[in-house]
């Protein structure tokens, strides 16, 4: 056990810091409040710049434009990005999930065709997994692809697709064999979103915004060379994508949470309760301390998981505790914010009385989704029960 940075980690960190010192944009604050549609070209430009410095996908192997960064270096990367308050990257799903899946499961031709444009943000990727009738039970998905000569004809509907509105390409999981057992008849396709028959509709969520889309496919033609992995092996391809989803989240969240708690502590000092600052109220102190401690424990869990993955080479099902931990913690954190802010907590962005431009009312509503997205808490507990503890499957 040694939590000091190694020489490689330090030099990685120093190289990144000096690169960021000259290249990190200074005007992100002017853009971050704007709708994503407006700021998107800005985010693309930022990703291009990162790519030029070979910082867009540090976790990727060197031969594909990454830096073969270890998990610790990846975590340092996100820490530095947060420290300079860098904007997010435009093609975050392409970089974080789909690119790694193509590298792991794709053909040489696919890698050549898609990887460079994922890195440069020339082609934005979205992910078509969930369906109206296939959420937690993803393997029950119904969008079908029928082989017709050298192409597939795709029909069906996807939902909760991030970046659908701007997506050039989609990693789409479809049913190619309706006679096989449900996990066995699936195939992953790389679908050009400009193909005739693809329709994208915004999905308005409870926060009022539309982060996600619904996708409709009517007789969409996909050439067979766009099958990712093997035909009818789509479940394993999808699982490998989801593994990246569960792995990469935590490091970034840590820093967001630290910012939240620091701000809440500040607010507690200036908010008066019963004639004294809320920071002196024993109950508020208990709650802030609990959250602050849990944020630290999230970090410790993360570091332990990283060391384990580094030693064994595979992210195991233990990652599910991270998902449960951060999502439930984020909800508790927002509830404390609401308690502290009292009546002000409900004010939306744009209201002249709103505190911190209304981020707390937004965060309260948005975090309600945290225990649902990226695998519900119930599914995560099933995973722990079955895959970690060895209890019999409940379904």
């Amino acid at each position, binding site marked *: *056990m*040694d*939590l*000091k*940075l*190694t020489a490689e*980690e330090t030099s990685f960190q120093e190289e990144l810091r000096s690169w960021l010192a000259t290249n990190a944009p200074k005007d992100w604050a002017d853009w971050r409040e704007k709708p994503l549609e407006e700021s998107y070209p800005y985010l693309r430009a930022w990703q291009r710049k990162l790519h030029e410095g070979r910082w867009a996908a540090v976790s990727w192997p060197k031969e594909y434009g990454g830096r073969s960064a270890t998990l*610790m270096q990846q975590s340092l990367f996100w820490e530095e990005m947060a420290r300079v308050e860098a904007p997010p990257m435009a093609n975050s799903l392409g970089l974080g999930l789909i690119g790694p899946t193509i590298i792991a499961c794709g053909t040489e031709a696919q890698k050549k065709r898609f990887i460079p444009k994922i890195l440069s943000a020339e082609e934005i990727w979205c992910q078509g997994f969930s369906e109206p009738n296939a959420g937690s039970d993803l393997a029950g998905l119904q969008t079908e692809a029928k082989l017709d000569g050298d192409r597939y004809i795709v029909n069906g509907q996807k939902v909760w697709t991030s970046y659908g509105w701007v997506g050039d390409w989609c990693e789409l999981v479809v049913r190619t064999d309706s006679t096989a057992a449900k996990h066995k008849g699936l195939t992953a396709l790389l679908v050009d979103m400009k193909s005739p028959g693809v329709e994208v509709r915004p999905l308005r969520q409870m926060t009022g915004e539309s982060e996600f889309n619904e996708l409709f496919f009517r007789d969409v033609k996909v050439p067979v060379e766009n099958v990712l992995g093997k035909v009818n092996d789509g479940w394993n391809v999808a699982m490998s994508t989801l593994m990246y989803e569960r792995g990469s989240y935590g490091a970034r969240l840590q820093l967001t949470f*630290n910012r939240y*708690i*620091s701000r809440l*502590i500040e607010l*507690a*000092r200036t908010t008066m309760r019963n004639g004294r600052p809320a*920071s002196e109220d*024993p109950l508020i*102190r*208990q709650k*802030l*301390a*609990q959250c*602050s*401690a*849990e*944020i*630290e*424990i999230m970090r*410790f*869990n993360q*570091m*332990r998981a*990283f*060391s*384990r993955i*580094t*030693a064994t080479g595979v992210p195991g099902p*233990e990652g*599910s*505790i991270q998902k*449960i*931990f951060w999502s439930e913690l984020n909800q508790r954190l927002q509830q404390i914010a609401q308690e502290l802010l009292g009546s002000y907590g409900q004010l939306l962005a744009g209201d002249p009385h709103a505190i911190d431009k209304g981020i707390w009312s937004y965060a309260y509503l948005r975090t309600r989704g945290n225990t649902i997205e990226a695998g519900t808490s*119930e599914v*995560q*507990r*099933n995973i*722990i*029960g*079955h895959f*970690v*503890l*060895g*209890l*019999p*499957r*409940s379904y």
Partner: protein
Amino acid sequence: MQFGLSESQEFLKDSARKFFAGECPSAEMRRLMETDTAYDAALWAKLTDQGYTGIIFAEEYGGVGLGKVELMLLMEEAGRALLPGPFFSTVVLAGSVLDAVASPAHKKKYLAPICRGEARATVAILEAGASWNPRDVQLTAANGKLTGEKLFVSDAAVANFILVVAKNGVFIVDARAPGLKISPMSAMDLTRKLYVVEFKDTPAELLGPTTNLPRALDIAAAALAAELVGGMQRTLDTTVEYAKTRKQFGKPIGMFQSVQHQCADMYLETESSRSAVYYAGYALEENTPDAATSVSIAKMYASDAGRTVGNRGIQIHGGMGFTWENDVHLYYRRAKASENAFGDATFHRERIAQLVIDTPTTAHAAR
């Protein structure tokens, strides 16, 4: 950066687990728990042979000189076996207090026999107010003598000497000293006995001022949290095993999600406690600026988790869990005692608040 255990740490943990499984199986633990003191001289000699009685102390006092992470690992395994007797009181508590406050000469006189397995000791802290804040201590030594009362003193009846936290320093009292009276308290945890210790003009030798006492108490608190982790792991293991084999409605009860999800929560709480404890051990060893905060984080989380893991474990065991013969309640009793000892979660949350809210230079701000 590497948060995993080193090979030698894995080895220590592994051999400790095997040692406790062999020397202190459930039947032996239950036998000792039924005795007056829960102390067994033969077991103590074996603990000494393993080097456990001197684990973190300097070699010049006969110790092994290992670090705080190693201490956490040993205590985790002791907790898994629900090790009865004065190991925590003697080695972790009295040993750390001596190490922190005593002069080299006093360490030779008192710490060395502990390392060599020749002496048992304990530390008397709490008084009638039962406050874990050392500032609330009222007992004061005058002219080298103590008169007053300490409560909840663990393993006092088998101690060769008792360290006493007084307002004007940390003192040491020989078990045979005149005016010393030790009487048992009847408490929930049957494996770690508590006593009332009364002094009447009892001669007491000053070891040193209380300045360095907090660090020793931090080591004790972190070690207790580690012990809680071991207890949680044992409770989780036996509960999962039971859920796999116990059948109702024609199925193993572990197939039902209401049971499975509780097991998942037990796992989450156990692992999170473990991460916090290992970090605290590391922070104490390296003397990081957040060492005190990290001890409070570990003790706070493990105190609550120890109780909730026990609750779920007994619940899933159903009627079996409520019987005397099932060990799960013995861990539950220990967990309750340890939850409170050296400050419960509420106590440590307030301490975290002082460290994080009132002095924002540590923890979060440090990174």
